């Protein structure tokens, strides 16, 4: 998605008008671009009248923000306690090895980003992998392989 200074300005002014905080404004930009482009940090600092260092601190303190662009598909493995005791570390490891990336990284072809979340609170389904917002429950190695295969097959279609 192309970065538009105009759009970012609009988002920021809208938040300021509604009395939103710097965090709320960054959340809105993150939702738009799925990451915080450097331009957004500079503009946010100017708009809110805070030093860039403070904006950077906020952008790096909270897990919801990312300073790197994300891949087309986002895989999010729940690492909550229930998922942990039911085997989520193995699920995560399998995805890391299949995609040849570590947690938090994006594949070179920008197809996948792998992330973890502390708990989704859908513990009856553990271990859970969320693919682009879609929940897959009771995951194991075989199901992970199938999941990745399905996405790759869809991608291969013209």
């Amino acid at each position, binding site marked *: 998605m192309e970065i538009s200074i105009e759009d970012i300005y609009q988002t920021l002014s809208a938040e300021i008008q509604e009395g939103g*905080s710097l965090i709320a404004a960054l959340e809105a930009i993150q939702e738009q671009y799925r990451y915080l482009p450097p331009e957004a940090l500079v503009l946010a600092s100017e708009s809110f009248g805070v030093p860039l260092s403070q904006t950077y601190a906020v952008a790096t303190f909270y897990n919801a923000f990312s300073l790197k662009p994300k891949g087309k598909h986002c895989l999010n493995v729940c690492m*909550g*306690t*229930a998922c942990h*005791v039911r085997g989520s570390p193995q699920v995560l490891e399998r995805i890391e*090895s299949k995609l040849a990336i570590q947690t938090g990284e994006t594949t070179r072809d920008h197809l996948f980003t792998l992330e973890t979340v*502390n708990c*989704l*609170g859908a513990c009856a389904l553990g271990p859970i992998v969320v693919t682009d917002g879609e929940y897959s429950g009771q995951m194991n190695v075989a199901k992970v392989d199938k999941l990745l295969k399905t996405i790759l097959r869809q991608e291969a279609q013209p």
Partner: protein
Amino acid sequence: MMRIQSAAELEALQSTASTARDANKPRLRVCDGTGCRALGSHAVLQKLISEIQTAGLAASVEIVGTGCPGFCECGPLITIDPQHIFYQKVSPQDVPEIVRQTVAEGKVIERLLYQDPKTGDMIHHEAELPFYQNQKRLVLSLNGQIDPTKIEDYLAWGGYGAMAKVLTGLTPEQAIDEVKRSGLRGRGGAGFRTGIKWELCRNNVLKQGDGTIICNADEGDPGAFMDRSVLEGNPHSVIEGMIVGGYAMGIQRGIVYVRAEYPLAIENLSLAIKQARQAGLLGKNILDSGFDFDLAIRLGAGAFVCGEETALISSIEGRIGEPRPRPPYPAEEGLWGKPTNINNVKSWASIPLILKHGADWYAGIGTEKSKGTMIFSIVGKIHNTGLVEVPMGVTLRQLIFDIGGGIPNQKAFKAAQIGGPSGGCIPREHLDVTIDYESLTSLGAIVGSGGLVVADEDTCIVDFARYFMSFTQQESCGKCVPCRIGTRAMLATLERICAGQGEPGDLEYLQEMGEHVKRSSLCGLGQTSPNPVLSTIRYFRDEYEAHIHEKRCPSHVCKALITYTINPEKCNGCTVCAKNCTSSAIVGVRGEPYVIQEEMCTRCGVCFSLCHFDAIRVE
């Protein structure tokens, strides 16, 4: 909805809504909470709507998408009124049959009923489920009954009646007194007396002119989802509680701080706030009482420490969520330097119940020092994963075995971790402990916010403790040294022990460091972070010692301490393990037993989980 001008008008509306809710009218209640949605309940709901339409029953049958009734294990769930027939694990393919058989003809479909694993009986009705029998659902009573997106549903059950009673009949002092007498203690974890907290805040508001009340819905404990379920399933109860709180403390502004990871809770709460505003239950001059109050939502951005009240305030102010020393407490100097009262979702949702039924009624539930009910999310190695509400004072055994249905796959119970990363592990010998603030604290655990994770014999307790430590270490904000460095040092030691490099003296070091971190950290996160480690050393010392001295993981979890081998008698050479081995460590000839080359094996466990013939051994 029209603006409600007075308490009399509200009462009239409640009674109209209640009459409209004909108990004999066929109703289909479908759980549409996050848990069931993840299992596909939304597709079931959509299919139901279209099938009812096709069958020409749309006018006579009501379909309600409800909040979470708690029985997540068996979702998607449908309850069919007026008979209260309970169907579980429903898929969209079952829907036409449900409409044809049960809705149209009143016939029960056996295959969709829940079977009691203990007796083998098929259970027909919701109330007969063993899961619900020992519960006392007060805060959760309307979850599963009402459509959280309709204010009329809440009004039909007497909603906003407690607020009307307070605004038009009680002085703020009387309202605070009622909460004090109820004995309600903060449900967020610390267990401070809610009424006293309100009184402190009110006194400061009187001096300083204004303040803010906050609902803490930054539910960060992994394995806990009751705050989310209350906001999703009954958001108006939280709003009503906050209006009462605002009136009692003389505050006109409220903020709900919700985790951004809970989209459905945010959606339902936003809608509820909008509806309450339209109905004049939020805004200026509520019910002509002269009292103004309004609510706003702020989203958390994924930082566990923001559940701590001073960090939460800092986050609302737009800064990084670092806690600060107390005093001054938020009641004196909180958001924007003004008096601030912060309560958990469940505390706020308890307020309307207390004021509706009276302080004496509430104080009659529970134990001497812990009043009322407590909501737990029971997760992990348990049959009935879900959300339960029980009176304070039930035993852990009742919670896990009667309500939770015990441990699956004939495994043995090992421990229950109560209170998340701040809590402690309770072993088998203390299963009969009663659930209340004092008893749990004496065992090194806490009631906390109500997360309860069950571990069985396959859970390595050292790895379990390491998991919690790694969580708090990552979530430590880094402001104070004891938490920042202490958690790191403890984690490094635990990682060494799990890696088979434990040394004599490690346990003493963990205990000593744990005490330091507890005593000298700035906020609750650090002060409680050693609890999982300290409590597991207290009850499972032998398991730690097996790791350290014998280099053995009794539960076969810690990779460095286990080996995988193939049992040649069971292996038929199907090649599944060899094809999927991430390190190409498995060799052999198709049709004959394969062999794992130990020096190449990374112990990822993939072969173990894929083998269909039970041929992979872990030792």
